[in-house]
């Protein structure tokens, strides 16, 4: 799996500089370079096979579920890019060694740089769409880190964010596009995709897929209208610019178009979009570049323009154009990298990049100047330099295309214009910086850089010359295999000569030269003309847009999430109303077939009383005490209803819970305002009323429909098995402690947790004790009336006795642990009320918290006991015994379980009420955190 190593080595290499950082700059640089160099060596090893025309494929399955394999290919195109990425990458590493200042963390820088390098490598050798996208996004992330390397600078942060956002958005579009393509050919394997070009192009979703993929490519390659991020990426350290904007980042988009050329190109849609975008970008970039005073700014726009040129070539409807595109990819990478490095040197040695200050540097740094001038001439496309050749091919191709129909003649014309501008800004770069008088108040006097800082530039410039003079000898083979990889077949015949005789392309070049010189000569006029438009800073526009979006979303959120519980509750209730109401529309009539029970007077009376007091509760809800009384009346009648419809257990439970609840509410009312002032607007009132009435009607209807419809249920089973299987005749109780004992277990846990939570609430509560109610009447100052004390004290044993009785009979008669527990609790509470905490404290020495825990523990243990008999949790056991005097009695594990319930209930209720009671006394301080 050696191809894997080509990407894996640099990936591992990301960590190396971080480790070697502390051992000095040289070692750090050297160690950082090792692994990438190794991977380059690997590539060169393979190069032979590729040149012999045998591409290499290797893959291992990774996540088949999403069609993601680790799948690699090495063909001409990949090889070409690998050479550029790794080669120039290594040069940049060397260059950065001298560029970075002592303050910059070198290890971090190299780490980011090499991470980025690995991502690029990954893109160009991917043979799987999703894997390709993965590395694509990785470049966005790592470039974000590189651009924001000087994160203390605002423009670095903003530039980085802009690049990330634009390319990230592009990445998402690309993902969608790739997934579409994948679903068309039903595979994410690149070979399959490229092989099925016709299928893709003829598919209905082709236009969408194409546009999505192109958005991805254009954003990365800074094509109009997405070009704005690139100049602001110049906030990065120059080595980064030299790398990202010559050979790598921006070339990724170009690579993508070249890669998918066989699959996506060949339709008018492709040609129109790609060529026109390219042309616009070419002209725009070339024009703006001329007006940039910042060296890097000029280079940035020239990059944009050259990328436009390549894009245009890919959009021209001919195979030779594709070849020319590949060729220009190489050339641009070489001369642009060297130019950025040169610019970096100048910046580094003179402390400025402003061409209005930088003048006549030739005599200060003659050697660097020469290199830079050669590179710039190559950019201008002067003969004997590599830039010239690819531009000749470009001109030639613009001549034999017909994409604009009868308007096609405009393309060569505009191409020449663009070329003229590129000549002009190249001239400006040369003349302004190296000639044109003396430097103007530079921070420091320029000098030649350290020896090895020039080496990378020398190498690249040498390449410019070699390619320029002996093209056939130097690049022809590479160009052949690369372009045949783009076209999927042998590239058409072409002749890489410097001299093709007198022909149109030559004439156009000449024209461009002359035009360029004239433009530069009359630049004052142009600058004046340009000065009429004030320059918009894309950074501010972008930030503005984002800010606007954020503000807008904040307005929306503020509108919806206004923090009013009443609204949220209203929405919740309304939503429930809709959900419950819609199905009822299909219900032709609510009355079912079940025979109904005839009315009797008592029931009517009860119903009337209940309805009355319910409504009364609402009407007097501002007078809280009165509301409470009516509420308790409702509660009482509810328990009567249960009794009426043969549910004695429910009746008892409801009754006892009712009492405790009311005590609780009364205690709470002591601390809360006794009345509510009127504050809801009538509109809200009526809305609320409307919704709740509707919901009431719906619930009532459903209730009626259910009551009147027959039901076949599982309940007969319980009645049948209650005695035989559960050992109890009180079916409800047996269900609670046996059939559905697990529910009960959960239920007492809930009770226990509630008690704990409430204690938690009380413990940190700093509430003041009102001495008088809100009418100003003082609360009674005799808290424990004599009479009451005596009565309650004598009642206590009685109450306990009752609860024991209720508990014991529970299994066979209405009753049970829960009710017993409540009765006990109420009895003890009564003591609290009667005697007060001080009196109770020494007498009742139980920690209610332990009571709760113990209760749950017992219930659990009962359930676990059945494990001993290899029965599932909560399996019950019971048997009948006969004792003298006592007579026959039953023992059942369920009783133990019920005991647990009993204890928990007592503990919980006491923990709540006792501590709440304490709040009213001086004991309140005693309530402390015990953890």
């Amino acid at each position, binding site marked *: 799996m050696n191809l894997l190593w080509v990407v894996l080595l640099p990936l591992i290499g990301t960590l190396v500089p971080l480790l070697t950082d502390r051992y000095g700059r040289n070692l750090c640089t050297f160690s950082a370079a090792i692994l990438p160099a190794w991977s380059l060596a690997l590539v060169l090893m393979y190069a032979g096979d590729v040149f012999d025309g045998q591409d290499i494929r290797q893959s291992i399955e990774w996540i088949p579920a999403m069609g993601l394999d680790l799948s690699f290919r090495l063909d001409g195109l990949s090889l070409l890019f690998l050479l550029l990425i790794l080669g120039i990458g290594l040069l940049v590493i060397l260059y950065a060694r001298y560029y970075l200042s002592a303050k910059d963390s070198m290890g971090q820088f190299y780490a980011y740089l090499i991470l980025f390098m690995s991502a690029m490598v990954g893109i160009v050798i991917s043979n799987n769409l999703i894997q390709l996208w993965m590395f694509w996004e990785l470049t966005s992330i790592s470039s974000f880190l590189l651009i924001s390397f000087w994160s203390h600078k605002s423009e670095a942060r903003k530039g980085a964010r802009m690049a990330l956002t634009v390319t990230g958005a592009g990445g998402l579009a690309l993902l969608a596009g790739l997934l579409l393509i994948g679903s068309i050919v039903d595979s994410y394997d690149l070979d399959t995709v490229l092989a099925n070009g016709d299928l893709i192009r003829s598919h209905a979703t082709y236009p969408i897929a194409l546009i999505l993929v192109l958005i991805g490519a254009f954003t990365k390659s800074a094509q109009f209208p997405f070009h704005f991020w690139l100049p602001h990426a110049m906030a990065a350290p120059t080595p980064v610019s030299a790398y990202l904007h010559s050979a790598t980042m921006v070339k990724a988009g170009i690579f993508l178009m070249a890669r998918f050329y066989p699959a996506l190109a060949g339709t008018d849609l492709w040609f129109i979009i790609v060529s026109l975008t390219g042309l616009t970008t070419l002209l725009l970039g070339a024009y703006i570049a001329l007006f940039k005073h910042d060296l890097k700014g000029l280079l940035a726009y020239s990059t944009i323009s050259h990328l436009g040129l390549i894009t245009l070539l890919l959009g021209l409807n001919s195979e030779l154009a594709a070849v020319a595109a590949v060729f220009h990819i190489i050339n641009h990478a070489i001369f642009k990298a060297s130019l950025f490095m040169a610019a970096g040197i100048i910046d580094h040695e003179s402390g400025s990049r402003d061409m209005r200050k930088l003048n006549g540097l030739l005599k200060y740094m003659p050697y660097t100047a020469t290199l830079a001038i050669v590179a710039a001439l190559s950019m201008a496309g002067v003969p004997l330099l590599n830039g010239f050749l690819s531009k000749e091919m470009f001109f030639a191709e613009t001549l034999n295309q017909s994409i604009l129909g009868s308007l096609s003649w405009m393309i060569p014309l505009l191409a020449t214009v663009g070329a003229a501008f590129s000549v002009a800004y190249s001239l400006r770069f040369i003349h302004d910086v190296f000639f044109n008088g003396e430097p103007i108040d530079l921070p420091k006097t320029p000098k030649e850089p350290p020896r090895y800082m020039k080496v990378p530039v020398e190498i690249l410039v040498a390449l410019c010359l070699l390619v320029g003079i002996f093209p056939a000898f130097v690049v022809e083979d590479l160009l052949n295999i690369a372009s045949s990889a783009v076209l999927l077949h042998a590239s058409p015949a072409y002749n890489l000569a410097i001299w093709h005789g007198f022909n149109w392309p030559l004439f156009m070049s000449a024209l461009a030269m002359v035009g360029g010189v004239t433009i530069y000569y009359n630049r004052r006029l142009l600058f004046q003309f340009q000065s009429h438009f004030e320059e918009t800073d894309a950074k501010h526009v972008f930030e503005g847009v984002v800010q606007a979006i954020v503000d807008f979303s904040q307005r929306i959120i503020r509108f919806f999430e206004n923090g009013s519980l009443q609204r949220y509750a209203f929405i919740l209730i309304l939503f429930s109303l809709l959900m419950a109401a819609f199905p009822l529309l299909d219900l032709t009539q609510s009355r079912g077939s079940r025979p109904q029970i*005839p009315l009797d007077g008592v029931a009517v009376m009860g119903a009337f009383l209940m309805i009355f007091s319910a409504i009364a509760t609402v009407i007097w809800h501002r007078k809280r005490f009165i509301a409470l009384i009516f509420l308790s009346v409702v509660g009482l009648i509810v328990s009567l209803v249960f009794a009426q*419809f043969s549910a004695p257990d*429910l009746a008892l439970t409801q009754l006892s*819970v009712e009492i405790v*609840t009311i005590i609780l509410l009364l205690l*709470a009312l002591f601390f*809360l305002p006794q009345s509510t002032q009127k504050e809801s607007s009538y509109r809200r009132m009526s809305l609320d009323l409307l919704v709740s009435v509707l919901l009431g009607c719906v619930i009532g209807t459903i209730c009626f429909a259910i009551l009147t419809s027959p039901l076949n*249920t599982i309940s007969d089973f319980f009645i049948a098995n209650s005695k035989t299987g559960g050992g109890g*005749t009180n079916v409800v109780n047996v269900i609670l402690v046996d059939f559905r004992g697990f529910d009960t277990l959960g239920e007492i846990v809930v009770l226990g947790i509630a008690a704990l939570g409430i204690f938690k609430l009380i413990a940190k509560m700093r509430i003041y004790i009102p001495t008088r109610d809100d009418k100003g009447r003082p609360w009674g100052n005799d808290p424990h009336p004599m009479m009451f004390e005596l009565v309650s004290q004598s009642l206590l044993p009685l109450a306990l006795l009752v609860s024991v009785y209720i508990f014991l009979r529970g299994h066979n008669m209405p009753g049970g642990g829960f009710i017993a527990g409540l009765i006990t609790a109420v009895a003890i509470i009564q003591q609290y009320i009667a005697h007060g905490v001080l009196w109770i404290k020494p007498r009742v020495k139980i920690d209610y918290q332990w009571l709760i825990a113990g209760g749950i523990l017992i219930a659990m243990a009962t359930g676990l006991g059945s494990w001993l008999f290899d029965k599932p949790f909560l399996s019950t056991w019971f048997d009948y015994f006969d004792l003298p005097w006592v007579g026959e009695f039953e023992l059942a594990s369920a009783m133990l379980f019920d005991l647990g319930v009993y204890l928990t209930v007592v503990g919980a209720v006491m923990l709540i009420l006792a501590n709440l009671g304490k709040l009213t006394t001086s004991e309140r301080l005693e309530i402390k955190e015990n953890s």
Partner: protein
Amino acid sequence: MEGVYALCVGILTTCGFFLVLRARTFTVVIGLTLISYAVNLFLFASGRLKLDGAAVLGQSAEYADPLPQALVLTAIVIGFAMTAFVVILAMRSRADLGNDHVDGQVPEDVIAQQTKVSASDKRNG
């Protein structure tokens, strides 16, 4: 009988939800309690109504559906636990936030309205 029963459930529900939609914690608690009554009755009704059915074996041939009764019992207990918690929470929020409004503060518009009302009261009385 069923009709009346359903009517009661409906009205309890209405009253409960109306009170839950009010702005003060205590009122909301009362509302929730009313709702829980309604819920229990409703759940109970899912077993249909039996006038003199037996819940205990051997009392009569007719049995009321015991399962819903068991469910309601559980529901009552859990309901009690929840009511208790929310009541104390209401006290806590009064203690922490100084008022008993469900949002922890009285909205401006309401304050303005109240001052107007009280002013008019003064004029009248």
